[in-house]
């Protein structure tokens, strides 16, 4: 059997004394796309943030193994170098910093980490222009400051573009669909589908089923109150659409 890309075992975490994750278990193998769905406050974004290494969370139990390594022991930038990518729910603006320069710095950090020679400005420009074409994006994106003055849709598209450039082994998409109109949703989904590779894996976090009309996951998990309460195939998302989250929660998941 193949080695999993990521294996989360009994992960518990709290923020400012409040327990958010209460024992999450999830294993993802190469070539798979998983979706995590759940109502607001179920811990979806916390899970994404912890996997990416954001400060401010206290891990109270469990472990996360990424490609054989203890993921939680790595700094966020080390995780990024190892191929972990988070498409942010709220991409951050960095005024005055040119997008191409930003991405070139990121890309070369990763190359350095892998012992590869860095690309110079010309080589990199050629490389990103191909990616822009691949995702049908406007080239002026490269000249603009990182996310600065972007519309909500543009920001989300830019996340997918960065993902295309950095070619992560494990990509987490945190509510990439939120705030998108149907056209933007299509563009973003197409991008995600284009980037699918048999040796990589993706974890899509979403509140709504509609994203999963465009991005078809291999597995769907329902996160509720800090635990995965149900897992299944893509049909689980449709079932969820009909019953709502309340109809899905088994009695065992409700705290006594």
């Amino acid at each position, binding site marked *: 059997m193949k080695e999993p890309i990521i294996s989360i075992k009994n992960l518990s975490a709290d923020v400012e004394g409040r327990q958010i994750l209460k024992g999450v278990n999830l294993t993802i193998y190469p070539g798979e796309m998983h979706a995590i769905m759940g109502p607001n406050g179920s811990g979806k974004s916390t899970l994404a943030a912890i996997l*990416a*290494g*954001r*400060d*401010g*969370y*206290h*891990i109270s139990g469990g472990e996360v193994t990424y490609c054989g390594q203890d993921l939680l022991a790595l*700094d*966020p*930038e080390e*995780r*990024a*170098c190892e191929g972990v*990518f*988070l498409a*942010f729910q709220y*991409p*951050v*603006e*960095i*005024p*005055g*910093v040119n997008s191409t320069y*930003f*991405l070139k*710095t*990121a890309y070369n*950090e*990763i190359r350095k*980490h892998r012992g590869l020679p860095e690309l110079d400005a010309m080589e990199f420009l050629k490389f990103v222009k191909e990616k822009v074409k691949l995702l049908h994006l406007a080239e002026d994106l490269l000249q603009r*400051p990182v996310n600065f003055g972007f519309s909500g849709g543009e920001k989300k598209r830019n996340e997918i573009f*960065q993902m295309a450039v*950095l070619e992560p082994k494990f990509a987490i998409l945190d509510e990439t669909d939120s705030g998108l109109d149907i056209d933007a949703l299509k563009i973003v989904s197409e991008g995600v589908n284009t980037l699918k590779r048999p040796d990589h894996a993706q974890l899509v976090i979403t509140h709504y089923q509609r994203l999963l009309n465009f991005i078809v996951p291999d597995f769907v998990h329902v996160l509720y109150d800090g635990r995965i309460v149900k897992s299944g195939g893509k049909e689980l998302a449709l079932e969820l659409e009909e019953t709502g989250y309340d109809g899905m929660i088994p009695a065992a998941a409700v705290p006594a």
Partner: protein
Amino acid sequence: MSTSTDTIEEVVKSEYKYGFYTDIETESAPPGLNEGIIRFISDKKNEPEWLLEWRLKAYRHWTTLKEPTWQKADYPKIDYQDIIYFAAPKDLADGPKSMDEVDPKVLETFEKLGIPLHERMRLAGVAVDAVLDSVSVGTTFKKQLGEVGIIFCSFSEAVQEHPDLVRKYLGSVVPYTDNFFASLNSAVFTDGSFCYIPKGVRCPMELSTYFRINAAKSGQFERTLIIADEDSHVSYLEGCTAPMRDENQLHAAVVELIALDNAEIKYSTVQNWYPGDENGKGGIYNFVTKRGIAKRNSKITWTQVETGSAITWKYPGVILQGDNSVGEFYSVALTNNYQQADTGTKMVHIGKNTRSTIISKGISAGHGQNSYRGLVKILKGAAHARNYSQCDSLLIGDQCGAHTFPYIEVKNSSAQVEHEASTTKVGEDQIFYCNQRAIPTQDAVNMIVNGYCKDVFQQLPMEFALEAQALLSVSLEGSVG
């Protein structure tokens, strides 16, 4: 995982690269200030009687003044009798020498600072006047500049060779009565640069002065005078560094710019005096008066990148006297550790259709305190004058401070004055975003801060824009970790 505040607090501790001291035989005056010392300086420089008289008048006026206290900076009282007002490498104390006669150690000092003075190593396209403590060491490309009629030399030399020009313009923009530190400078100034661009000449290269404090306990009081005659154009740069010492040292300079009709002066500063250590010990007190006067259709641009000094106190201004004249001020001021900066500009609109632009970017890190203080004054006759001011403050960490003190006086109703201000924090969000894209925290902070300063760096000549970026990175080292 560390908590979020820890991350940011670490980013601002840096090593000062230029903190070395050169052991050279130095001739200095004894500490203290009195008429005798002023006569001593004037005599050393073999000055004409009128200049000595001017110095003495300035000194007598200074003794009637009180040190100002309105600026936002705390520092222990300065003992003006404990400062050495003249210090020079021994072989240069009695006047300029040819480059071959200068102590090799002095030349090495400048080489170490990246300012080679020897003919074979000179910086391409930049003429340099190098000032060490109280004297000019030498000026490069003098001959080539002389061929198009440009005078670029040390102030002391100008007094000897071009006394009429010096006498006509010295104190014409910053009179010796202007303020406490300008009066002090007028009494004891030792050297600095002098520059005259004749009518219709566009200076073919960047002119630059590099100021270095070396001797202990001495103050540096330089005086720079730049005259751009009608229809001429010049771009001028100054840089400065000093050794690391536990005691504070005083630097009180005066810069006067004169832009005659249709002339343009671009004056850029990369100020990197020793800022003191991470506990606020030592560092330069940088109390400087800089002002330009702009005649008809002329333009003066001040661009400054202020990263050094324990305390910075300067307001490069423009008196927009001629109709249609333009004044610009672009500033990046960074305070880290315990540095304090109170800086800004004064734009005084006198002529019709005069325009001024102010872009100020203050960055505070560590325990740094950064104040923007700026005056926009539109006088009665300044019909249709326009000003645009933008003052932004960036905070790194939660121990620093940013303050804005805009003063606006408008006496003509046809004037348009706009003022915008913002304060932002380098967010954990921004840093985490960069981290998640494989960019380490220190690089992320540098990137964010450089992006923030972009509008100002664009105004610097290219080589200096790169230097300024690098300098900012060094100055921010350790501010997040």
